[in-house]
């Protein structure tokens, strides 16, 4: 492989994982990691959790120190935007005019936040959380304000709600749908979380859309479709993300609200792979094409992408999993649980620890666990190795771990 040049575009979790996996697999050619942020790859999950709260300092977010890149001969090109990919010449054009040749290319460009676009939003200095700088800016701003309005009752919004309540702020959450985290969890879980936030004195407004925001004398006024208004000091929006697939699209790669990849993380060009938040793929556990925004998907796709770049035959078949920390509740999700026809509960919903198992056509498709990690891990193992019916899960509820190993 000497003489080969592998270029990775995107310096997030998937990008660094592609690089590390390539080196761990013995790739000895030139390896360049292009990132548009001007710092080394870092972990994003803490940005809406412990880092925002102030429990973790910046230095501890980095995946690897500078010395790792030197030791592994990974060339980070930081603070560098990619302008275009020329697939026939096999080159990547960078901002400033420089061009990189590549033998194989990996796209790990991630996603960016969807911005609030209601009337007045542009003047309201709405905060979002995607980058380290976003989280630092919000943390600094929070130090001097009391009233926080959060738009979007998904993972990010609710994690920010929990953090800002811990910081003693007055917090209101607006969710346009009629339940929290509606895209990813069951109605039972949505209700558990709305109860949890209300118990923690968050005002949770469901089915409420923001029509307009106005700013006067440092106060932000929010007006909703239910003719309600609220005065606050700051707006934080977590209303979803958009795949960064523009350079792929412009290069003629197949995209569908994300870069389309197969189970080897290959795009429609045999020399270009893609991994992480920027991709869409047919997921065997979801039974449909999805775009997953998760650490699991970023890491596992990146490993497969690296293998494919080296001519390997590995396929992406890992069980999807997600987690969220809100107050003392750790939510762990195994599988894609939106399309179930039956469910089974272990423990009582609302207790400090319980799990809900989901089934479709009498087959286990996943589980949500609250403070029940052994159940979560057992379900991941079961789903990776076998098909389990509702009767089987029920019969083995007391020892899922042994059932997973059978």
């Amino acid at each position: 492989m000497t003489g080969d040049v592998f270029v990775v575009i995107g310096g997030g979790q998937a990008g660094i994982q592609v690089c590390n996996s390539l080196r761990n697999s013995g790739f000895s050619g030139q390896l360049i990691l292009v990132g548009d942020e001007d710092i080394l790859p870092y972990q994003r999950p803490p940005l809406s959790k412990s880092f925002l709260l102030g429990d973790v300092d910046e230095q501890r977010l980095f995946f690897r120190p500078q010395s790792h890149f030197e030791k592994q001969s990974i060339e980070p090109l930081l603070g560098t935007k990619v302008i275009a990919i020329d697939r026939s010449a096999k080159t990547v054009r960078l901002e400033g005019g420089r061009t990189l040749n590549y033998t194989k290319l990996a796209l790990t460009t991630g996603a960016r936040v969807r911005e609030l676009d209601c009337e007045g939003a542009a003047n309201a200095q709405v905060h979002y959380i995607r980058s380290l700088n976003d989280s630092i800016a919000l943390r600094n701003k929070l130090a001097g304000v009391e009233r926080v309005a959060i738009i979007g009752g998904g993972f990010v919004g609710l994690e920010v709600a929990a953090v800002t309540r811990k910081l003693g702020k007055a917090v209101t959450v607006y969710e346009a749908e009629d339940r929290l985290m509606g895209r990813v969890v069951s109605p039972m879980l949505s209700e558990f979380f709305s109860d949890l936030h209300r118990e923690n004195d968050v005002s949770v407004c469901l089915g409420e859309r923001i029509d307009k925001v106005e700013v006067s004398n440092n106060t932000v006024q929010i007006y909703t479709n239910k003719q309600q208004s609220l005065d606050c000091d700051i707006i934080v929006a977590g209303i979803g993300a958009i795949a960064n697939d523009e350079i792929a699209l412009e290069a003629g790669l197949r995209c569908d609200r994300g870069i389309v990849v197969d189970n080897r993380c290959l795009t429609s060009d045999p020399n270009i792979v893609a991994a992480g938040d920027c991709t869409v793929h047919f997921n065997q556990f979801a039974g449909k094409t999805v775009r997953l925004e998760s650490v699991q998907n970023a890491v596992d796709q990146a490993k497969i992408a690296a293998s494919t770049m080296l001519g390997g035959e590995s396929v992406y078949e890992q069980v999807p999993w997600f987690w969220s920390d809100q107050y003392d509740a750790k939510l762990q999700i195994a599988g894609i649980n939106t399309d179930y026809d039956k469910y089974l509960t272990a423990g009582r919903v609302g207790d400090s620890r319980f799990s809900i198992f989901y089934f479709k056509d009498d087959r286990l498709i996943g589980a949500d666990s609250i403070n029940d990690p052994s159940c979560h891990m057992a379900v991941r193992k079961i789903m990776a190795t076998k098909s389990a019916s509702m009767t089987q899960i029920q019969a083995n509820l007391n020892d899922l771990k042994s059932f997973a190993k059978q």
Partner: protein
Amino acid sequence: MSKVTYRQADGSANTIEVPVGWSLMEAAMQNSIEGIPAECGGGCACATCHVYIDEGDMSKLPDLSDMEGDMLECVAAERLPGSRLSCQIRMTDELGDLTVTIPSEQF
């Protein structure tokens, strides 16, 4: 500053200084110590930062939380009496020097 020695399954070892407040997982990542993927970044959500604490050091550590105990049931390598998740062990002034062994598999 306290020193922590990370021994790999093959016997090789690195000793590094760990600042107070840092977890053993964070210190390993920031010093390029291999074998601790720590996919969830310290959230006690993934069980990929499993280490074995040396027998002589075990009594110095704070007790397992229920959460850590549960996650340890699910680690890839064998769970032994010295098994801990390195993301859950924070360096303190009292803890002092430690030696840990990284298992050969985390998945």
